[in-house]
């Protein structure tokens, strides 16, 4: 937030803002929240695993070994091998890349599409608001996953298309939240002040409104990443995500299901990985929420 203060730039009227101490207070509340901290640690851990996967992974995640298929966990293969003799541990590590990437990028898309729409609707109100929000409502009425499946099938199966499909399907949620928050913020004094000195709408929206609705949006972003990771796994599970042989947790689960009878443990690891990552983001989002809004 300190960055945004300096971005007001010289020569412009400084608009009063929540004081720095507010941020410090929030931060302290967050750190004291053990669950939130646990979430941060889990997310951080998976991020490190994903980033350094090439260094950590004992084997190439696509290297096959016909002589060692569906092996139980051992020292050579911590999580065993899959139906083509590939090292499951290495695939889980590389799968983290796909999952986290999908989580971040698709939410970035949702954010990029949804937030501007919501802000415009909330800020200007009137007919524009009605039109935008009716469209948003209509999208929200169609179950998220059905929309994402249809979009992913349309775009063709690949990780990037899955991200686009999830991103678009989730954008209405951000639009709605951004609108609600904008409507709260736009009657604040500092916005009125900016308007009274004739600041153009675009400046008010980007410099003042956006900065002030960011905290609740960040909470939503964190929770949305959790949803997006599950959605990407679901699309992968249905064969609409990452293309083989590249690993993704969803498609690993789909493969494991086919070998459930002969190699039941194969189905455990990708599921646990999805669960932990999603849990991490959910704890983090919850902690952020509590820290920003400690009423409950």
């Amino acid at each position: 937030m300190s960055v945004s203060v300096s971005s007001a730039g010289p020569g412009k009227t400084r608009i009063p803002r929540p004081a720095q101490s507010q941020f410090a207070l929030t931060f302290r509340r967050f750190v004291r929240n053990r669950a939130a901290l646990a979430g941060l640690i889990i997310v951080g851990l998976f991020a490190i695993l994903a980033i350094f996967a090439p260094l950590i992974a004992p084997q190439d995640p696509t290297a096959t070994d016909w002589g060692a298929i569906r092996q139980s966990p051992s020292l050579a293969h911590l999580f065993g091998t899959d139906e083509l003799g590939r090292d499951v541990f290495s695939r889980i590590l590389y799968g983290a890349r796909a999952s986290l990437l999908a989580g971040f990028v698709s939410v970035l898309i949702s954010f990029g599409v949804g937030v501007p729409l919501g802000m415009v609707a909330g800020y200007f109100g009137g007919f524009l608001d009605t039109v935008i929000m009716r469209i948003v409502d209509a999208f929200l009425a169609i179950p998220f996953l059905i929309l994402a499946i249809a979009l992913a099938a349309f775009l063709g199966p690949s990780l990037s298309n899955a991200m686009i499909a999830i991103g678009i399907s989730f954008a209405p949620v951000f639009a709605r939240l951004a609108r609600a928050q904008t409507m709260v913020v736009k009657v604040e004094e500092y916005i009125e002040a900016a308007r009274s000195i004739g600041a153009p709408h675009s400046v008010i929206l980007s410099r003042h409104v956006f900065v002030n609705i960011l905290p609740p949006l960040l909470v939503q972003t964190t929770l949305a990443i959790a949803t997006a990771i599950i959605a990407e796994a679901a699309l992968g599970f249905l064969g609409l995500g990452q293309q083989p042989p590249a690993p993704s947790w969803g498609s690993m689960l789909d493969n494991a299901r086919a070998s459930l009878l002969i190699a039941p443990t194969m189905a455990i690891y990708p599921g646990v990985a999805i669960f932990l990552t999603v849990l991490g983001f959910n704890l983090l989002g919850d902690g952020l929420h509590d820290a920003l809004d400690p009423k409950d």
Partner: protein
Amino acid sequence: MLRFLANRVLVAIPTLVLISIIVFSLQQLLPGDPALIIGGGEASPEVIAAIREEYGFNDPLVIQYFHWIGDIFRGDFGVSYRTRQPIGPMILDKIPVTVTLGAAAMLFSLVIGIPLGILAALGKGKGWDHAVTVFAMSGISIPNFWLGIMLILLFAVKLRWLPAGGFVPFTEDPIGCLRSIAMPSVVLGTALAAAMMRHTRSAMLNILQQDYVRTARSKGLAERVVIVRHAFLNALVPIITLATLQFGTLLAGAVLTEQVFSIPGLGKMVVDSVFNREYQAVQAVTLLSGVAFVAMNLLADILYFWANPKLRANR
């Protein structure tokens, strides 16, 4: 009340129209020429042209849209290209399946979620509360298709207590029905139960701080009476409202749950139809779920309005 209702319905109409437009565009989105699919691999170009003509694929999109909407108002959802079965009755066959599953999941989530939520609220900050919070967090974070696979592994493959999939209608064999939906309803209901716990907890906490609860306590009423009669009954309204709003989540969850357990409901139908390029079936189910979603929202609004005397007085 009537004015409120009328207002709500009026607002819902443009949403419904927009839903129908979005749903209609899904056909334009899905890849593959439907005429080629209907004609099959060996149809000649003349046959394909005839099919295009017959199904009106040559008409402008706007005309196609109005044809489609008109047919739907007459109750005609089209005929499956693949099986030649009419889609309307097909959906009618599937609604009871998904409703049975959804109701069981909802029941599971209420039975698990509400008592645990109350317990957590009463013991705020204590061990119970933490346990429930962790439990709820896990429930929200667990991917339901994975949970499904794990349950199949345990109860169907290892223990062989329950069928791994498929669905038995209640009218046909009640016991078999319960066996067939036991695992799926737990899978579908878990995230819901977690949400229910959290909502119940915060609604209860909110109400326990209200004056009338304090008054009741100060009058020396037994704690159990206070909690049940005063606190819980009042917390029930927001809980039920929220349960109604969970409808969309339930339907989206059913998509994967039905897939994992091979349950022939609406969710499986929509996925199979996407993969089989059954455009009309995809459109019909999606439209239906959108309409149902709007209807459930309306219901939630009405419930909320009806249960809040203050709101009623203001109107």
